[in-house]
């Protein structure tokens, strides 16, 4: 048939998770992205992570802005509500959604254009609020949907399809987030599901805002020679600073200290993130060290990946606001409305 068949996020596994669901139950509708687009691999990783942690589909809220990346929430967990909102505003909308219902799990999917240009302010302030959500930047260095303009994450010297080099310094979401006090910062590669899935699972357990920047090549506009966001470039220059295992709450924890100074971090919800293969001088709980490590390797042109920094000690937006454990949207009206007697009493102040 003459139309191009799209890769659907299908996994052969028929294993069932704790909820009795197979991985197919976490799929969405068929992708309409370009064949080979990195974003589709991230979709697959999200599907796997949600399945593995046995997230109840209806308890997930999928948030996005506008862009190829922002389309992807249609392609996973069709049993969850999704909100493909407006360009750059996802963080703000997710903030309000979370304010109304903290019981849900929030996965936001954004692009480098969506997050680092038009939506930059909102993302920074969501970090500041330590909004509890998994925030994924599907980072391809370009605006995919509007056909290949450089985004703010394009590296100096990275070439456009036409061959013109970008000359402005990139905004590195990882460095930015760290400087803003972000409490969970990771970078991965759409081509490395092994690394990505455990990161996503850890992020979903994080107490606050979990930024996961995933290099996700745009095969149509930014996968050529000269691009620093291509499959080839990323594969060749990727440095795995950390590898992680995610141990869910119920499991028995074997907090072994690995060879290269492995560490375990106990998550707020009782799960554990186990770092394997951490470099000797690396401590994912020490912001300064992480920054030093990053800038050192960044200087060498390396794309440092892994769960890079984690801090479970900072309260999230709800804790800061002392909201109840129950979703605000579910609080009964009787509790919210002071009633006529109170109004009468109050009005004595207005005389």
């Amino acid at each position: 048939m003459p139309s191009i068949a799209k890769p659907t996020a299908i996994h052969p596994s028929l294993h069932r998770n704790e909820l009795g669901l197979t991985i197919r139950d976490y799929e969405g509708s068929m992708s309409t992205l370009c064949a080979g687009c990195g974003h589709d691999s991230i979709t697959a990783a999200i599907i796997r992570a949600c399945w593995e942690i046995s997230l109840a589909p209806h308890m997930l809220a999928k948030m996005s802005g506008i862009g190829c990346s922002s389309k992807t929430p249609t392609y996973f967990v069709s049993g969850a509500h999704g909100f493909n909102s407006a360009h750059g505003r996802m963080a703000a909308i997710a903030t309000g959604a979370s304010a109304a219902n903290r019981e849900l799990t929030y996965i936001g999917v954004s692009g480098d254009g969506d997050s680092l240009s038009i939506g930059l302010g909102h993302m920074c302030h969501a970090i500041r609020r330590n909004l509890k959500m998994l925030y994924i930047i599907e980072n391809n260095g370009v605006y995919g949907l509007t056909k290949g303009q450089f985004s703010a994450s394009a590296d100096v010297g990275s070439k456009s399809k036409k061959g013109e080099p970008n000359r402005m310094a990139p905004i590195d979401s990882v460095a930015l987030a760290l400087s803003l006090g972000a409490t969970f910062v990771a970078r991965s590669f759409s081509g490395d599901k092994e690394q990505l899935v455990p990161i996503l699972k850890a992020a979903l357990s994080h107490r606050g805002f979990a930024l996961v920047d995933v290099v996700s090549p745009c095969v149509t506009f930014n996968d050529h020679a000269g691009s620093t966001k291509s499959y080839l470039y990323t594969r060749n220059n990727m440095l795995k600073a950390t590898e992680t295992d995610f141990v869910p709450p119920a499991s028995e924890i074997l907090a072994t200290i690995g060879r290269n100074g492995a560490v375990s971090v106990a998550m707020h919800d009782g799960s554990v993130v186990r770092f394997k293969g951490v470099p000797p001088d690396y401590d994912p709980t020490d912001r300064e060290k992480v920054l030093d490590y990053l800038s050192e390797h960044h200087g060498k042109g390396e794309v440092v990946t892994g769960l890079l920094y984690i801090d479970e000690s900072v309260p999230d937006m709800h804790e800061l606001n002392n909201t109840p454990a129950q979703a605000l949207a579910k609080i009964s009206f009787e509790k919210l409305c002071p009633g006529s007697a109170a109004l009468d009493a109050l009005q004595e102040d207005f005389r």
Partner: protein
Amino acid sequence: MLRAGVEKAVRVNDFAIKLANVNGTGSASANGLLMQAIFRMGIPVSGKNLFPSNIQGLPTWYEIRVNKDGYTARALDYDLMVAMNSQTYERDIREVRQGGYVLYDSTWPLDPHLHREDVTFLGVPLAAMCNANFRESRERILMKNIAYAGALIAVLDVDMGVVEQLLDEKFARKKALRESNHKALHLGFDYARQHFDPLPFRLEKMDANRDKILIDGNTATALGCLYAGATVAAWYPITPSTSVMDAFTDFCKKYRKDPETGAMNCCIIQAEDELAAIGMVIGAGWNGARAFTSTSGPGISLMNELLGLAYYAEIPAVVMDIQRVGPSTGMPTRTQQGDLLECAYASHGDTKHICLYPANPAECFEFAVKSFDLAERFQTPVFLLSDLDIGMNDWVVPRLKWDDSYRPDRGRVLDAAQLEQIQKFFRYSPEDENFVAARTLPGVSSKGAYFTRGSGHSRTGAYTEMPDEYQEVVDRLLRKHRAAAKFVPAPVIERRSRAQFGVVTLGGCDAAVREALDVLQSRGIAADFMRIRAFPFPESVEQFLNDHEFNFIVEQNRDAQMKSLLLLETGVAKDKLRSICVYGGFPLSARRVTDRITSQLGELTERAVHS
């Protein structure tokens, strides 16, 4: 209720005073004290605060109008000017009516060129007295205000008992301050009693305010949000809307703390900007919370894009627009009704929104509640268009009432059980008689899961780029908007016998226009009155307009925005609508209206004669 045409020797409870100050010197509390005392004396009164967009050092005025017949729109003739700002002496003294009075600080002599033969100058050595009696320089400045208040109490016959009582309440926990205030008050009072004859106008206790309260619109709006059960509020500070959120925050502290857990049953977020604020409201509305933001013109402009999203994706959102003078930054501390068109049609593409137009704090309370009901019932943004005059001035209004049987209208939201009963859920169909389809909330059931989008979608909620599917949805949206006309507050209509024409207004123009109609009536010109309270317009709006040969539309903007809306959204013929626009930024006064109606009527007659 005709206004007394003849001036009596001593006018009781019928005069206006203006107090000219420098902002940041603490005059607000002295002025408020006077206002509140008069209110407690049971006399109809209004206070208008005309303050600068500045924190300290610029001219600021406070106007008090006392009127036993209840005409409390802004007066333009001042019987007494309290001139405390040497920078504006010239203008202030000029504004006093013939035969009026000027009270000033006689510590320094008044420049002779400021003298007017036709007014009486009452000099009180305020600075000198305060310097002699207080030590700290800040206190000296503050107490000067209380001292002039004391002098006014003397010359106007304010009930000193009421004033002392007010000070007791205010400084219940601040004894030293209570002392100073007492001292300063009596410095002024005693001086005035000793030096001045009684004025030809004065106060006398009445009983007009028994069931009234003194409240500003923003506080009332916040109270409405509290009572409506709003739980999420997101905002970015902007004058004159900030006090909505300040009040809501205070109310929440008092009423929303869970007695068992200590948790706060609300989440108030100071957003990074207005784009975020409306985004948060939309996110919360999507998730089923009653959510609102408060802002002013510049914020509405910034919210334009997301308002279109909420309209098209059908998400409840409530926006309190406390209007100020535009365009652009404009005059942040002046009042206007300049966002009517912007709000009615906010966003690119074809959009129409529900707008409510309260006239005073009592309606702010009522309409704030209503706005949440409408937003949820019609799954759409709702604007409450208040303004600086309503929002930030204290108004005397009837006590607010609350019906404990009120339950929020959550609109069509399917719960898990209802979802069970249907075959398959589609977000945008079937629609009910008001063209509203049921929605579902996240977290309830996978069966209700759907994908919300601001991009083209069909009645099922699926993505579409096909004309017919697209059109089916936007056509329903148009019908839905029209259907809301039956649910919004009906206009207030008052007919007079032998009315020659209609006079239509909205919002805070109410008092001035009513007064104007009474004045005109006293001159033999009778007109019917209609105050529009919402868009889309209920049928009665069009009916009223059509019932009259012509109608004056009185509003506070340059471009006749309400008249424009009426033109576009009713079937009324153009020549039935005449415009009276007053938009300089101060609250409307009756004289502006009578003058303009009279002159336009003159033109009409002239034209009739010549044709």
